[in-house]
């Protein structure tokens, strides 16, 4: 049996003017378990708290009910007071007789009666309260960043700068991501490589950063502060320790038929290659699907020519297992495949290209050495049509319902750069809306129109037909309300962007959630935008939603701060009001796991009684946030929520209804 003290606060006249506090105090004494009651002017004041503390000590109270303002105001205050004199803080409950009684009722009789009932409900609950202790779990002081694009790089550098170890896992042979393929960036028109390369080098040379390139995270277990990741390192067939990145092997390689991914397949590379000049790590990699040695067993030219003796055809896949305290998802994006969008004829016409391909065509390190030549005949295009919202903001199954956000700006950039470099070129841009919210963005767009004379046509393109080398673009001009037909030399499609295809499996691995478009869901769309609902998992860059570079970098740093905040703790204090499964009742049916938004529930086989091995639910208290979804889903009632147990809530119901 509990020994409960009930403390009624006057809150000056806020409560006492409408509630007869003496009567509540008197009524409390008749409640089961109550051994003491008192009222006081300001319970939250220093002396009010002392009153409670003294009563706890002198009367040996095991539970406390404070009838006062909302628990959202002072629950923490009173719990702390109780804790300071040795009472478990979770033995304190609040009856809200201010916001829910005195402030909304005028009649003293009625208000007092309700206050008594709320007090009774709180007492009924405390009678069933149990001391709760917040669990502690150690924090592994190392972070994992999945994805080595600008988002991942920035996050990693920020975390590392704060003094924590970071591993970047990148599935490609080099970090750098999509940004490395860009030519110039809007709205400043500075060259992407010039600003990205130093970051890549900084990451590579940072003593706290380890880049695990050409690797993928295979599985993740554990929970916030204590994840274990298995990382699969694909064989490069090049000894990383020996390779100097000289590039002789790539030069000597007789196989030249592989599409060069870095240039969006617009030129070729050898079977052994270095992705691009600024690649980090700058190491060669052999593509076994193209390599003659792998296919026929003969060749080995690269091996013979490598002075560093780095070629190793026998290299095997490796598994790296590492523990992490936090995980950052920075899996980035890809332009969508355009095969489904037949009206643009992308797959039929070599001169219908994507914006990313245009980036490569304009880049000095690109397939044309930076001279804008159209792919089909390597001629200079004189009339170029840009089409916006290709696959974005559409309602068809092949479309994405969202705005890809970056296309308006990069199209303005492209058209401006082309007009600047090739003033004899006519440039048309078909658009639905031009969206330019951002610092200096609208100015930038207006320059394209006003200063560079880019023809913006509000309307969509319905059809592109190849007519003897010319691309006949059939579009509509909504402002003029007429059909437009343009015989273009080159058509550039602003393809929608979508999360990297790995996002789904990464989300499953991390029990993080993704939305219908496979973008990662944030813990709160406004207040916790860089955290995933799964504790210890953070989001950086476009994996969470379309972003441009500055936004990506900002979010990457924000995620880093969250990680640093987490890693700076030696131990995590868990929320003690968490779910727990009574193994004797658990059926192991997996219902609870399905509704848990945090992936806090797993199943273990346990000897529940001697000789009785059963599959039972196990709640990871470090991960559980205490929502209670599992408790209601559980058919046998095995699952309960500490601090809000079935019995406690029913006792409150009983007290109110009696």
């Amino acid at each position, binding site marked *: 049996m509990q020994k409960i003290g009930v403390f009624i606060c006057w809150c000056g006249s806020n409560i006492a003017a409408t509630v007869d506090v003496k009567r509540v105090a008197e009524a409390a004494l*008749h409640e*089961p378990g109550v051994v003491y009651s008192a009222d006081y002017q300001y319970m939250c004041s220093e002396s009010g708290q002392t009153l409670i503390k003294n009563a706890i000590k002198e009367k040996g109270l095991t539970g406390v009910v404070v009838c006062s303002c909302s628990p959202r105001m002072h629950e923490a205050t009173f719990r702390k007071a109780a804790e300071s004199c040795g009472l478990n803080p979770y033995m304190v409950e609040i009856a809200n007789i201010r916001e829910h009684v005195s402030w909304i009722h005028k009649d003293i009789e009625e208000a007092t009666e309700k206050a008594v009932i709320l007090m009774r409900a709180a007492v009924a609950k405390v009678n069933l309260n149990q001391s709760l202790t917040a669990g502690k779990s150690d924090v592994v002081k190392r972070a994992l960043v999945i994805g080595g694009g600008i988002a991942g790089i920035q996050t990693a550098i920020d975390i590392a700068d704060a003094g924590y170890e970071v591993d970047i896992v990148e599935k490609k042979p080099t970090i750098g991501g999509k940004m490395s393929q860009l030519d110039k960036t809007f709205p400043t028109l500075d060259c992407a490589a010039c600003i990205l390369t130093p970051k890549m080098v900084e990451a590579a040379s940072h003593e706290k950063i380890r880049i695990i390139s050409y690797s993928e995270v295979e599985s993740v277990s554990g929970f916030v502060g204590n994840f274990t990741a298995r990382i699969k390192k694909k064989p490069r067939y090049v000894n990383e320790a020996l390779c100097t990145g000289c590039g002789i092997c790539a030069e000597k390689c007789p196989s030249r038929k592989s599409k060069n991914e870095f240039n969006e397949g617009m030129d070729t590379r050898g079977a052994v290659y270095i992705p691009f000049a600024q690649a980090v790590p700058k190491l060669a990699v052999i593509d076994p699907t193209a390599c003659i040695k792998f296919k026929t067993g003969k060749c080995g030219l690269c091996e013979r020519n490598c002075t560093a003796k780095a070629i190793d055809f026998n290299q095997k896949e490796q598994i790296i297992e590492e523990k992490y305290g936090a995980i950052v998802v920075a899996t980035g994006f890809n332009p969508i495949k355009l095969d489904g969008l037949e009206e643009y004829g992308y797959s039929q016409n070599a001169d219908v290209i994507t914006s990313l391909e245009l980036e490569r065509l304009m880049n000095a390190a690109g397939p044309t050495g930076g001279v804008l030549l159209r792919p089909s005949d390597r001629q200079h295009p004189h009339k170029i049509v840009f089409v916006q919202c290709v696959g974005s903001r559409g309602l068809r199954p092949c479309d994405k319902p969202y705005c890809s956000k970056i296309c308006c700006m990069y199209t303005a950039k492209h058209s401006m750069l082309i007009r600047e470099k090739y003033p004899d070129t006519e440039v048309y841009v078909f658009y639905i809306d031009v969206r330019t919210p951002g610092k200096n963005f609208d100015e930038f767009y207006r320059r394209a129109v006003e200063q560079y004379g880019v023809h913006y046509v509000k309307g969509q393109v319905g059809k592109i037909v190849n007519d003897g080398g010319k691309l006949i673009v059939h579009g509509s001009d909504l402002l003029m309300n007429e059909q437009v037909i343009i015989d273009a030399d080159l058509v550039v499609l602003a393809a929608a962007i979508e999360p990297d295809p790995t996002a789904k499996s990464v989300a499953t691995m991390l029990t993080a959630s993704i939305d219908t478009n496979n973008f990662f869901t944030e813990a709160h769309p406004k207040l916790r935008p860089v955290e995933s609902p799964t504790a210890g998992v953070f989001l950086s860059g476009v994996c969470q939603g379309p972003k441009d570079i500055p936004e990506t970098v900002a979010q990457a740093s924000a995620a880093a701060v969250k990680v640093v905040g987490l890693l700076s703790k030696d131990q995590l204090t868990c929320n003690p009001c968490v779910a727990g499964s009574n193994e004797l009742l658990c059926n192991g049916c997996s219902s609870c796991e399905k509704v848990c938004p945090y992936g806090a529930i797993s199943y273990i086989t346990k000897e529940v009684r001697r000789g009785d091995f059963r599959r039972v639910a196990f709640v990871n208290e470090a991960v559980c946030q205490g929502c209670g979804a599992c408790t209601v889903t559980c058919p046998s009632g095995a699952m309960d929520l500490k601090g809000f147990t079935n019995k406690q809530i029913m006792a409150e119901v009983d007290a109110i209804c*009696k």
Partner: protein
Amino acid sequence: MFKIKKNSLNKLYAAIAEAQTLYIPCNVNGKPNFAVWGEGADVDLASLKTVKSAKEVFFPQCEDIVSFKTKGKEITVIDCRKESEDFVVFGVRACDAKSFEILDKVFLSDPVDTFYKTKREHGTVITLACSRPEESCFCSAFGIDCAEPSGDVATYFSGEYLYWSPKTEKGLNLTNSLKNLLEIANDKDNLALENEQKNIREITKKLPLYGLDLSKWGADDLLEKFNSEKWQELSSACLGCGACTFVCPTCQCYDVRDFDKGNGVQRYRCWDSCMYNDFTMMAHGTPRPTQMQRFRQRFMHKLVYFPSNNGGEFSCVGCGRCVEKCPINMNIVKVIKAFGGEGK
């Protein structure tokens, strides 16, 4: 011997119900069950068996024992027993009538169950002979003659009439109070009735369970039966529900429960079933943790323990309700036969 025309029965019911509560088999939402008679009641004497047996009038499924009222920290104990008023239960079949004798052995022996005793004293039992026994019936195995039931008054259907034969003082008193409705039966009636009874007894002999042999059962061989390997197989399909128990006229186990009313506690007793896994649950747990043990308990009790405590009398009357109601058709007959009690 008296008689009353079948089409006048409603008057008879009304006359009885005027003075006391009358329980009679009625069609209650599609099923025959004992119910309190009232004007417009859908009396069903044609169905052979009510779902729940007639024991319910003496030993209801739920019965309040005592109340506790709490006010703040004060507790008041309230005796909620009501002195039972006189009542009549009409249409009790021979098997159910016999079951009262078995229940009496349990509840009226020391310590006497006063709740039950009061009801027994105040209740008048009017039995009704069976006219069409069914395949699940095996009352004859327990020496019951379904054509000649016991009771305070025994009644029989034959032709246009219900025949009425008072057998006890209680029965006579009731008969006297109904004199103006009852005619005296003549010799012709008696003869017709005897013929009817003969017919019924003939049918009884044709029943598939006729001649069920109980000679292997009783107080002897307790341990041998208890340890038999047959129980495992017999019980393997048992679902552990209480259907057999709750339709049984002789099952007498009950549980005592407290209901928290908010401002007090209502203590009541309710039927319990030995088939339930929390039956006789104690602080240390249950003495019969497996369904086999619980299954065995039910039949050992009816066929071995009860006879050994009650001069060889079985605590089964062969009404066959459990035979009909078991969801998986396992029943006392199959158990009896499994231990060598083959029928004819």
